[in-house]
């Protein structure tokens, strides 16, 4: 509560303390620009993190509920084996739905590799059956044993072997997004620290005079801290706004869009970028205060 009160005091400001430090146009604009650029990048890092989070969740849930049965059989036996496999699946507890993919669907799956107009019927490609599990799920070992006995050409793929690396990759991307945001915050802190130190060095005479007349270090620091915090908040607000507009202008998600068109915010997640300006202010406050007090200690 005391810290909160101090923050409100800071935002309310001490006009007299701030007036003691002469205005510095160039460093002010530089700090505001830096905060804006970092906030803009933070919006994208946040969007990336949230999008990969959604992707990981979708892959985890969708792939966990589906599996594929692949039937490879001589041309004359394909239909019989498909029927037999569907019968086995129909009587397997935990299987909610089993559906053989049509030739068009199989062509669509192969299209990215072989291009359009692929004569699927003329090629010895296996028949695929999509299996959707119910809530309880089925026993893959038991199903494999039954299929081995009744449909010798069937191979069950429960997606485990490629679902896990995909989910792991999406998780890593999400982590990368978070690390990016942490790095942006650290870079912002470093840049504001440098700007604050430059401002303190440029105002050495002001500091000497203030000390001579009995100003405490906290009084001197407050003038710099408020100034840099406000610049960071204003810059970050502008950068966040620009970032949100840029995300809005990204192409919309569609079936063929893939991952990149899914980059953005959904629903209440649009509120997340609003934390960036106050966060930038908090980072600027901590960085400037630490830099100012350290610098004042060194100058004494």
């Amino acid at each position, binding site marked *: 509560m005391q810290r909160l009160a101090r923050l409100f005091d800071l935002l309310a400001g001490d006009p007299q303390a701030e*007036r003691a430090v002469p205005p510095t146009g160039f460093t002010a604009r530089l700090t505001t620009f830096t905060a804006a650029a970092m906030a803009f990048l933070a919006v994208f890092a946040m969007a990336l993190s949230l999008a990969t989070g959604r992707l990981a969740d979708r892959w985890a849930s969708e792939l966990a509920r589906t599996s594929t049965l692949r039937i490879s059989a001589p041309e004359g036996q394909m239909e019989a084996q498909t029927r037999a496999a569907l019968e086995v699946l129909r009587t397997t507890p935990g299987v909610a739905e089993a559906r053989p993919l049509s030739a068009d669907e199989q062509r669509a799956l192969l299209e990215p590799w072989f291009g359009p107009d692929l004569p699927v019927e003329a090629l010895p490609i296996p028949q695929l059956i999509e299996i959707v599990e119910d809530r309880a799920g089925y026993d893959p070992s038991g199903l494999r044993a039954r299929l081995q006995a009744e449909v010798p050409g069937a191979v069950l793929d429960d997606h485990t072997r490629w679902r896990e690396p995909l989910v792991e990759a999406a998780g890593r991307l999400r982590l990368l997004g978070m690390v990016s945001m942490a790095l942006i915050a650290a870079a912002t802190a470093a840049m504001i620290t440098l700007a604050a130190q430059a401002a303190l060095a440029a105002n050495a005479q*002001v500091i000497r*005079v*203030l000390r001579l007349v*009995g100003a405490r270090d906290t009084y001197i620091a407050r003038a710099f801290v408020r100034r840099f915090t406000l610049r960071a908040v204003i810059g970050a607000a502008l950068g966040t706004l620009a970032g949100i507009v840029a995300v809005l202008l990204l192409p919309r998600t569609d079936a063929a869009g893939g991952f990149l068109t899914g980059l953005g915010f959904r629903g209440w997640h649009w509120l997340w970028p609003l934390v960036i300006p106050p966060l930038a202010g908090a980072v600027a406050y901590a960085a400037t205060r630490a830099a100012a007090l350290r610098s004042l200690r060194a100058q004494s």
Partner: protein
Amino acid sequence: MPLTGAIASPAPFGQNGAKRNRGRPVIELDNVAYSYGGAELFAGVSLALAPGSFHFLTGPSGAGKTTLLKLCYGELTATAGQVRLFDQDARGMARDGIAMVRRRIGVVHQDCQFLDHLSVAENVALPLTVSGRSADDRDFRDLMGWVGLSAQAAQLPPELSGGERQRAALARAVIMSPEVILADEPTGNIDQEMSQKLLTLLVELNRMGKSVLIATHDLTLIRAAKAQVQARVLRLRDRRLQLAGADL
């Protein structure tokens, strides 16, 4: 042997003087040494500034007069010995403590430094501002009138002449009604007439009960002061502080 001012001086300055002489020293240096860059500037310096005392500090250039003054307001720390400011050991003081002590000591430098983006009035009021107080309008006008800067109150410091800057620095030094005034070559950059005017202001302050210590080369100033007030003259020479002879 410590050189004491008003403590040793039997002559009071009017009614207040008698009370002042009974007070403890406001600033006390006990066997103080200061070294800079391996060279000892002075050593074995003992001094006690009693309330209401008036001292001059003379000595050749480079003898350490400015350094001695800086020790007196906590800008520098003695390399040996003890400096006591208002009965507190300066060495043990935190920076906030030093800041509080400086509110009780008014300092005037030869090269008066101001905040050039603030008006003269704001600069004069700066000690009040940093201590979170505001000036009473009438008192403030009186102060500006006393130093003869009423007409310059709204100007910026770079627009002032040397003498006006010195008087503005004096006004800033006294606005908190400090117990001690330390002045470092206050007449170094101003003409004779202005020096006399400044001295008159310092003598008036002393008569109000303030302790005054002026570091100066200006023998005319010292002689003029001794004609108006009982002042002691200390000389910093050959790394020692001595009481100056009767010629001063």
